[in-house]
């Protein structure tokens, strides 16, 4: 297999911008996207007219977004509103910059699902399984966590460690939606949604937008802040069980192992070198699957691994220091990539990881992706 190893440290994230997170019925996707874009432009000090590449994710119509921002790029890409797209989009932008298709790419993600009452199940996500009442990504993750319990004896109290660690981080993040402390007992007593999962295993649904601006490492030197380099990427899709959406009977273990091999080889590091993990957490079990698949612990051992605060800011593997999807904001991976950048710049205040040099983004989904970021 031809690798992308030659792209190591050649492409950089130079600007990031986020909106407030919450319930904003007064704002359209485009209004939120414009706020995030403006923040990212200010963050890197670029003349916005230099931007010649545009990626829109969950934004309804890329052309309207371009109209709103006064952009007429030479490279444009529209991505669907799936959580797995953020890592994919950043890798696509990396390739576009490397090939010269664009010099400066703005990637914009918007979400108005909270104020518009999106459910993620039932008739809005019709499927073959509706007559049996099986619906929603949460149900698929409940099905997988039940299997993890059966096979490895993982407990819901161990699962709670994930939600509790991320909530503690959210309490240190002034931008986070969730402000209330959470204990393992709170998690155990929360109302069940699709058992074995409970409310506190589910991500938030909130409005907001994120913008990331990327360019070559060389051009990045002329911008305002120290660039954050993409040191490694990895990818593997698993489509053969797509009719049961968001489900894999082995929790995407093989795909995660494959992705891990690619990303660690390209970056020249391993799991023990990672200062902080940004782990896609649509549902808390995804974090356990990710830790196993990427070799932070052995297969089936994630329950024991997360016990005692391993994922906390002062634990062995600080993870989702912004609070993640579970407690910061439902920005479908995008805010986690922004948090990676902010950690490497040392901008995270009370939640700053000490001596932070290497951050890894991981999304274990039917399109498993990972990105390793480092300081220039």
């Amino acid at each position, binding site marked *: 297999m031809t690798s992308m190893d030659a792209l190591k440290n050649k492409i950089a994230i130079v600007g990031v911008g986020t909106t407030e997170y919450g319930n904003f019925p007064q704002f359209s996707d485009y209004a939120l996207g414009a706020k995030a874009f403006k923040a990212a432009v200010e963050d890197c000090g670029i003349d916005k007219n230099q931007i010649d590449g545009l990626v829109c994710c969950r934004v309804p119509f890329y052309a309207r977004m371009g109209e709103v921002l006064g952009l007429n790029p030479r490279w444009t890409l529209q991505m669907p509103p799936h959580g797995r797209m953020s890592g994919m989009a950043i890798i696509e932008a990396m390739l576009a910059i490397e090939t010269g298709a664009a010099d400066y790419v703005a990637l914009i993600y918007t979400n108005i699902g909270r104020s518009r009452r999106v*459910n993620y*199940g*039932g*008739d809005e996500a*019709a499927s*073959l*399984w*509706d*007559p*049996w*009442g*099986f*619906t*929603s990504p949460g*149900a698929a993750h*409940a*099905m*997988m966590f*039940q*299997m993890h319990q*059966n*096979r490895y004896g993982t407990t819901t109290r161990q699962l709670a460690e994930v939600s509790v660690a991320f909530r503690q981080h959210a309490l240190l993040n002034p931008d986070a939606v969730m402000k209330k402390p959470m204990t393992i007992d709170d998690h155990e007593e929360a*109302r*069940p*949604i*699709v*058992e*074995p999962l409970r409310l506190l295993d589910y991500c938030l649904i909130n409005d907001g937008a994120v913008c990331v601006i990327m360019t070559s490492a060389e051009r990045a030197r002329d911008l305002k802040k120290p660039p954050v380099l993409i040191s490694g990427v990895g990818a593997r899709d698993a489509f*053969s*069980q797509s*009719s*049961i959406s968001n489900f894999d*009977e082995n929790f995407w273990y093989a795909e995660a192992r494959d992705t891990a091999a690619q990303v660690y080889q390209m970056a020249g590091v391993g799991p023990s070198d990672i200062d902080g993990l940004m782990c896609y957490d649509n549902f808390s079990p995804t974090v356990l699957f990710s830790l196993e698949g990427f070799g932070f612990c052995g297969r089936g051992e994630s329950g024991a691994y997360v016990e005692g605060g391993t994922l906390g800011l002062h634990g062995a593997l600080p993870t989702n220091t912004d609070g993640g999807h579970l407690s910061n904001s439902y920005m479908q991976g995008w805010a986690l990539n922004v948090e990676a950048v902010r950690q490497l710049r040392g901008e995270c205040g009370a939640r700053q990881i000490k001596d932070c040099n290497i951050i890894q983004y991981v999304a274990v989904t039917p399109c498993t992706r990972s990105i390793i970021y480092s300081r220039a």
Partner: protein
Amino acid sequence: MTYSKPLPQADDLLMQPFWEHARAHRLSIQRCDDCGDGHFPPSPVCPHCLSEEQTWEPVSGRGTLLSWVTFHRAYWGGFIPDLPYQCCLVRLAEGPLIVANFAGDKPAHLAEGLPVRAVFHEMTEHFTLPKFIVE
């Protein structure tokens, strides 16, 4: 009485033979006439060899339990009276996976790998739903 749960999607022509077999109390999967690959859910071409020649084949209705969940939230009003209700994931003896329900109440003992068998519940005059009992 009106049936208020979701019906099979009327425009899903690919699945129609499955529902027709179900009305005759037969579970079925799609099998490729050229390479013999058996698959479910159905596909317009064989995912293994891309042949367009495929036939619906009745299968044993036997399988093993892979997983199960309990819904405490109804995404359709028709399921509210059933709350909490279970869905199960079954690997058919012939290979493919199917999501369904247990027939009757939640079985007292559940474990991955338990043998299960399909039974058929006539939900309306025109629509029969396969469910599973643990053997």
